[in-house]
């Protein structure tokens, strides 16, 4: 009984397999194998070429961001590649941030940019400023850019370094924390 059914079964399977093959080919959907570390959860959403805007409870824009890739996980954590963020500031140029990697810890709203992180913006007096740091927290809840990983800064009339930084983009304050060294460009003789 079994011998007689088998050929019949093969004749049934052939068109079915052909159909599946065609389906994947024609729709051009190549399911990319998601690189998942051993034991790590697979991302719930895995997105390429992402752009997003974060707004607060009142609908006020907190930042806009882009990333070459963004993976979101069930515990609300996230990982980004080639992350770029724009943080608006009232009456001043926005902070423009970029880093090769970024991540968001589980169940938190802040984002960690991982270096080298470049920060382009301006001092409170408006002078254009570039900063670099190995790591930077972007905390929309507290409107705060912060790091304790060391920061170098450079601008036309002053440059230097510090161990830590806190910049409140709502209050428009800048704090340099720990071993601050600031060099001012000398007057022209």
């Amino acid at each position, binding site marked *: 009984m079994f011998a007689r059914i088998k050929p019949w079964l093969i004749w049934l399977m052939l068109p079915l397999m052909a159909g599946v093959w065609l389906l994947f080919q024609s729709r051009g959907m190549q399911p990319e194998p998601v690189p998942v570390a051993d034991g790590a959860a697979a991302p719930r959403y895995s997105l390429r070429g992402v752009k997003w805007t974060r707004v607060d409870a009142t609908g006020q824009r907190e930042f806009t961001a882009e990333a070459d890739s963004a993976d979101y996980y069930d515990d609300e954590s996230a990982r980004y590649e080639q992350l770029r963020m724009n943080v608006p500031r009232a009456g001043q140029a926005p902070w423009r941030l970029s880093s090769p990697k970024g991540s968001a810890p589980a169940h938190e709203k802040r984002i960690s940019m991982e270096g080298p992180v470049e920060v382009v913006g301006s001092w409170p*007096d408006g002078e254009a400023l570039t900063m670099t740091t190995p790591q930077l927290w972007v905390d929309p809840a507290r409107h705060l850019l912060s790091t304790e990983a060391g920061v170098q800064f450079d601008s036309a009339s*002053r440059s230097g370094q510090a161990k830590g930084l806190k910049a409140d983009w709502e209050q428009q304050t800048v*704090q340099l924390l720990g071993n*601050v060294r600031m*060099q001012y460009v*000398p007057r022209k003789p």
Partner: protein
Amino acid sequence: QDASPTRESRPRAAERLRPVGPVTVTATSVDWAKNGMMIYTGDVKLSSDTLNLDGDRLELEQLGDGEYRARIIGKPAHLLHSGTPASGETPADPPVTARGRTLVFDSKNGIADISGDARVTRGEDEITGETIHYNVNERRIQAAGGSGGQVRIVIQPNNRAAPAAGTP
């Protein structure tokens, strides 16, 4: 008749003595608010090529073109203006030190105002008073007693210089 060396004109001397090097400030932390001053706190040191200031807190205002006004508070705050060696007809100038509870230095006019138990030394000369103005560019000192206070000045005789021939 001792032939005193012809003195360099005052403007040229002032220009030569004016601190012009890059100004470096080090401190434990800096706070800066929009439309506010940059405030350094904790072991604050401001140094340029010939002038050094230190204290506990520094309020720094940049005046453009590399000029600045620095207000330093300390217990006390200090100033050190290094001396200059003799050059050509210009005699050597001894270092000047100052200390007081507050020091305000304006790089534009080159004046350092020292107040609060102020004391200035120039070489071995010493001046104390409530408020002392030190013209850094010209190395000239003015002192005021303040409300009812007095200025006290001790000038060490300049007896080390070899007496010129024929002078008593």
